[in-house]
């Protein structure tokens, strides 16, 4: 059993080495990839997910005709 596990571990190491060796000179297999190759969209999927109430508009906080704000954004 122990020798079988040892062989499996050794096989794994050899396999890993081969994969790394094969990919080292191959631009088509970029994993692990560098940060510059990151293609995850950041803005595209999120551009329209916010909305304001078009009927009320922005107001001054001291406006007598409007209810007070419930929160403030603060500043980071």
């Amino acid at each position: 059993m122990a020798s079988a596990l040892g062989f499996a571990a050794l096989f794994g190491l050899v396999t890993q080495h081969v994969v790394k060796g094969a990919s080292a000179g191959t631009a088509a297999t970029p994993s692990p990839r560098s940060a510059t190759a990151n293609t995850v969209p950041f803005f595209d999927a999120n551009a329209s997910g916010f909305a304001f109430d078009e009927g009320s508009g922005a107001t001054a906080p001291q406006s007598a005709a409007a209810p007070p704000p419930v929160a403030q954004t603060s500043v980071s």
Partner: protein
Amino acid sequence: MRAHRFAAMGSEVHVLLPSDRGDAITHVRELFVDWERRLSRFLPHSELSQLNGRLGQPVIVTPLLFEAISAGVAAASATEGMFDPTLLPQLRRIGYSDSFDRMPPSLAATDEAPREGGDWRRIVLDRRSRTVLLPPGCAIDLGGIAKGMATDSAIGLVRRKGVKAALISAGGDLCVHGLPPAARAWRVLVGSDPSGEVVPLVRGALATSGVTRRHWLQGEARRHHLLDPRTGDPAASDLREVTVAASTCEVAEVAATVCFALGARLGTKFLTSRGLAGRMTHENGMTSTVGPWPPVRHLDAA
């Protein structure tokens, strides 16, 4: 609605929940405390600090840290480096080495020359093995983007808990879910000016970046925490404050930070090209808006 407040991630967190769902605040507080414990650069034993101390070798990290770094790198890539999560050495150079609340108001001058950003380009991320390799000289500060992501995550959490309406605001990042009872929108005061504008937010998030709070003296030099990655120095912006509306705090935070560093003219182009809305307070106190930001109605004059 009932208001709850607690301190986390260097900010006061303000949460509005339905009066009968006060139980959800426990989950929100636990989330923020957990994120701070793992992602703060100010805690020497945080997972981020540990990673920053292991340069030049792949390190297996937790899913949370991997996703936060991935988001920071994606934001940097999407902004051509104008958002940069690897400016920690530059922040330390200008004296921002501790939580702002613990910093003295003035620091000794430094002889160290500024260095431009861009180290994020040399980070190696491997999603399959969930490893991060930081190159020598690189150090990550997730600051604002982590707080934005935590706010988004907290809103998602209360939604999954069955809460019908909630607002969470954490030091410049604000996100809403649902609507308050009998209201068409959440009325949110924007920025640091108590006599500023109140906007009716129906859905999405707002983030405000500015230098009205975090600034200090280093020798004779006035410093603030919003750096320009092109120089590594505090951004010489013609803006005092920027608020951006987006679907998430994560995106709004990045856009507000970039817009501030770019200044009014290029910042307007940046927001417009990405379909975002924003409000800028210029150095002279004048304000301008970008995209579908709501127009001001002068109710008292009506």
